[in-house]
């Protein structure tokens, strides 16, 4: 029933394993482990690519050249960055809440890595196509607030504490409009399954049917991934780096790994929910379309981020509650009326 190179490759691999092992459940476990490893590799690579990409794109926007010393055209810059970060002294400040402090960067990576399981990369290529996919996705991504709060509280620094508190206030501001915006998509699809949502866009993308939801999603996705102009949590000009002020070396790197992973996540989600996922003209395979769209989205988010100044926390909250939420509710109403009219016609 499914087509595509990735799907048939996976099927071939499964048959080979089946002939060696023979027991279906063990084959399933091996396949899951292989897929999870690939996903984690994608995530790690995305951080490597994006550290360079972000700096190059930001340099382009800021009429600079950007990294150009390490390797040809600065291509090895992220490797150099990584070596530098590993080389750094691991400073543990005094007076911290040790366990929370240590756990915070590690826990932050868990939701960022976990949601890759719910992304349909190609026709039938999805690690966990559960029937509450979208719901789970939202639930897991909102868990990123907890490590931020933990890090902010445990660091025993006022900057960190303010940053941690901002995370929570911010989540209340964006999470509600975002869920209501995505409601429109669920109403059109009639399912929370991620593969079904992509399938429903085979003829027309949801960006056409749900322009309001698309707008709200873009804004809230920027907030969720702490991208500027909504990077209030780490607002470097007032609270230094928010919750990660006191972290150094690899602990700090984990925060940034999660940040870049989140950046790719919102790119993937925008693609999957509004831009038709892996659908595209036939001359390229589905996963190629998927990545092209994702990278265009990421480019867009970076472009926005490097252009706008940061919002103030009260402006952001009132924008979320007074502007985005009413628009999201109107969108739900309009979608309902639209579906009703479509059905009786």
């Amino acid at each position, binding site marked *: 029933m499914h087509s595509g190179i990735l799907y048939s490759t996976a099927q071939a691999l499964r048959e080979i394993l089946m002939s060696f092992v023979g027991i279906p459940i063990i084959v399933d476990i091996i396949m899951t482990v292989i897929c999870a490893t690939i996903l984690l590799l994608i995530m790690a690579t995305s951080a490597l690519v994006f550290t360079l990409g972000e700096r190059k794109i930001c340099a382009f926007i800021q*009429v600079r050249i950007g990294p150009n010393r390490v390797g040809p055209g600065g291509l090895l810059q992220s490797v150099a960055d990584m070596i530098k970060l590993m080389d750094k002294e691991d400073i543990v400040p005094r007076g911290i809440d040790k366990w929370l402090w240590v756990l915070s960067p590690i826990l932050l990576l868990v939701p960022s890595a976990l949601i890759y399981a719910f992304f349909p990369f190609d026709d039938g290529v999805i690690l966990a196509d559960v029937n509450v996919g979208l719901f789970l996705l939202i639930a897991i991504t909102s868990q990123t607030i907890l490590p931020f709060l933990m890090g902010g509280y445990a660091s025993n620094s006022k900057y960190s504490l303010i940053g941690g*508190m901002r995370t929570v206030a911010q989540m209340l501001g964006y999470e509600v409009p975002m869920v209501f915006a995505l409601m429109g998509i669920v109403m059109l699809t009639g399912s929370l399954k991620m593969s079904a949502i992509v399938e429903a866009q085979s003829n027309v993308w949801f960006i056409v049917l749900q322009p309001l939801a698309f707008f709200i999603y873009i804004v809230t996705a920027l907030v969720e991934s702490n991208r500027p*102009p909504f990077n209030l949590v780490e607002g470097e*000009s007032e609270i230094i780096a928010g919750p990660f002020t006191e972290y150094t070396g690899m602990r700090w790197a984990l925060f940034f790994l999660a940040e870049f992973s989140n950046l790719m996540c919102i790119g993937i989600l925008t693609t999957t929910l509004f831009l038709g996922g892996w659908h595209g003209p036939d001359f390229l395979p589905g996963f190629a379309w998927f990545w092209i769209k994702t990278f265009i989205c990421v480019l867009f988010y970076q472009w926005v981020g490097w*252009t*706008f100044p*940061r919002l103030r926390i009260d402006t952001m909250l009132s924008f979320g509650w007074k502007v985005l939420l009413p628009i999201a509710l109107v969108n739900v109403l309009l979608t309902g009326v639209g579906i009703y009219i479509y059905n009786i016609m």
Partner: protein
Amino acid sequence: MAQTEKFVLNMGPQHPSTHGVLQVQVELDGENIVGAKPVMGYLHRGIEKLMESRTYAQCVPYTDRLDYVSAMNNNLGFCMAVEKLAAIEVPERAEYIRVICAELNRIASHHVFIGSLTNDLGSATGMIYAFRDREKILDLFNIICGARMTAHYIRIGGVAADAQEEFLRDTQAFVDYVPAMLDEYDRIFTGNEIFQARMKGTSIITKETALKYSMSGPNIRASGVDYDIRKIDKYGAYGKFDFNIPLGEQGDNWDRYIVRLKEIQESANIIQQALDNMPEGPVMAKVPKVLKPPKGDAYHRVENTRGELGFYIVSDGSTKPYRVHIRRPSFVNLQALDSMCQGMLLADAVTAFATIDPLMGEVDC
């Protein structure tokens, strides 16, 4: 019932937004500011005292280090004070070159203002654009005197060397570029919704408060007080030029920003007029090798980028000043920080600080 308490946040002396080494003790209630107390002195180098053991000519480089982003204006202030003290007549061509350099430096300093302001608002891109254009002015200074920031170009009795053709030509090119540059700034940040939302109506300094704190420069003009030493004293060649003093209306962050943007255009107009009417002649007066001003004192004030910069020099008839006192506009302006931050949010403290535009070298002297 949850219990809340106020706490004090020490912003600085190592903080990305204090433009140097200033400590601001911000008293916070959640994110709301109750009070902000600037603690100064981290960059104190004792320039006033150092000058007492230097000859007058040796004092001039120290003024470069006061307000190091508008060094020319400081040179000008000190040299004019000494000239007043020793009754030295400066050649006309030197006066014109001084005006060109001072106004170029005013623009460069406003570039730093725009750059650090946008950076403090969270948009690093704005900073790069402003600094890109500042670089053009620093290159001009490089041509005329070989130094970029700490110029030491204006000397007692005139300027160090005559302005070359190359300098005048490139200055003309820069002046022609100014309208396009301002237009680009308008498109990048002035017109930005978020930028306006953060600037308009925040950290208001009323006319009365501004006068009470004896603020000066663009800060007081943004509050609507028409006070510009260039117009009042008409020192140097400034009496010969026709220029406007941009004024703000209500004295919020936005006005302080707009006043400076308009000042860039006015400075460009002054430079244009100076280039057009540049007289020929010497650029240095006859100043004795060993300068011994007569016994007495002199005060001279100039409008530097940040406001009224005054030099009070007491001479005991020897080669060295007996006492020098510097009235630093940044130091005076900074005192208003507390009243600007009352009732604002933490993020506004940074904006308020950036729009006062103090420079630590000048605050601490």
